[in-house]
């Protein structure tokens, strides 16, 4: 990977280690979809690992993939690694939620730079990842 752009003062620098941001559901609730996506992508492109307490809605995940694709470039960003527990929703989604278009999306989500995070194991109760310093 090329040198991470040290434009941001609090970005994790290679010799210091890897920065991990745990973002609460409350903090994400205050943001619009595109603000959430921007926050995630800016952090990940800075080499940070982002852990979301409550994850994203399917719609937001879809847009996150789309925006990620538009920002991938050959000499820097290769995309992201994202892990959530496999959901066991569908059947348990409430009728009112469906009518109102609300999805229950409270699932811990880990997102990091594709070239720095590697999922070792994942099942319904455990996500194990290897993070490397770049």
């Amino acid at each position, binding site marked *: 990977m090329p040198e991470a752009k040290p434009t941001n003062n609090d970005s994790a620098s290679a010799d210091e280690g890897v920065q991990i941001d745990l973002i609460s559901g409350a903090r994400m609730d205050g943001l619009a979809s595109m*603000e959430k996506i921007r926050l995630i992508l800016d952090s990940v492109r800075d080499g940070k690992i982002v852990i979301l307490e409550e994850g994203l809605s399917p719609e937001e995940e879809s847009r996150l*993939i789309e925006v990620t694709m538009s920002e*991938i470039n050959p000499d820097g960003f290769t995309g*992201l*690694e994202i*892990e959530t527990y496999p959901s066991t929703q569908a059947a348990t989604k409430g009728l009112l939620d469906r009518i109102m*278009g609300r999805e229950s999306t409270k699932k811990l989500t880990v997102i990091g730079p*594709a070239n720095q995070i590697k999922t070792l194991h994942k099942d319904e109760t455990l996500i194990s990842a290897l993070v490397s310093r770049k």
Partner: protein
Amino acid sequence: MCTEWKIGVYALQPSDRPDAREAREVRMGLLTNLKDSISKVTDRLFADSEPKRIGIYGPPNAGKTTLANRIAIDWAGDTVGPESHIPHETRRARRKENVTIERNNQTVTIDVVDTPGVTTKVDYKEFLDHDMEKEDAVRRSREATEGVAEAMHWLREDVDGVIYVLDSTQDPFTQVNTMLIGIIESRDLPVLIFANKTDLEDANVQQVANAFPQHETVPLSALEGNNMDEVYDKIAEYFG
């Protein structure tokens, strides 16, 4: 169509006051649902004249193009696009229109949309392993990222049903599969899971079925043409 598009753009407005946004999101939820019900009614009314657009989704190399070509050859006498063992061969969504499938005494007309395999990462260096020059690999990866973005867009705006193709020799419990199925479910689209490559020795159809128990799984070999009768029965049943 025009109003739908406007609603989409409105939802994208990035920053305004949270309370206004909340109210709008509730409104939007209602609007979207109202719009959905209207379009479902109109879909039914125009069922005979307007073919359903069926998107073929799934990870790279699952056999999406092989399947799309087989459907197109069987029912329209023509292919959709090239198949390849190199990931991201399909870098543009390709459409075969008006494929009419006859089952028993029923006919279904669909537009088959073959999409690039969805992923959250693309590294041009992976193409270098396939004997490609750097310049080619970079161009190919750029096309691949555009294709994936386009495929996500199609999924949000332009498909009426989804065939989700998986390679039965691979672990189905991947993040991309989980996310994509979640996105498809949130849009209430009819979906069939196709467990492909059953001709291979280590195919594990049961594992695929277990991964998505809420959906019907159909085993097949798109390459060998195995179990295509059931494939077409299910397509007619789900998307007719």
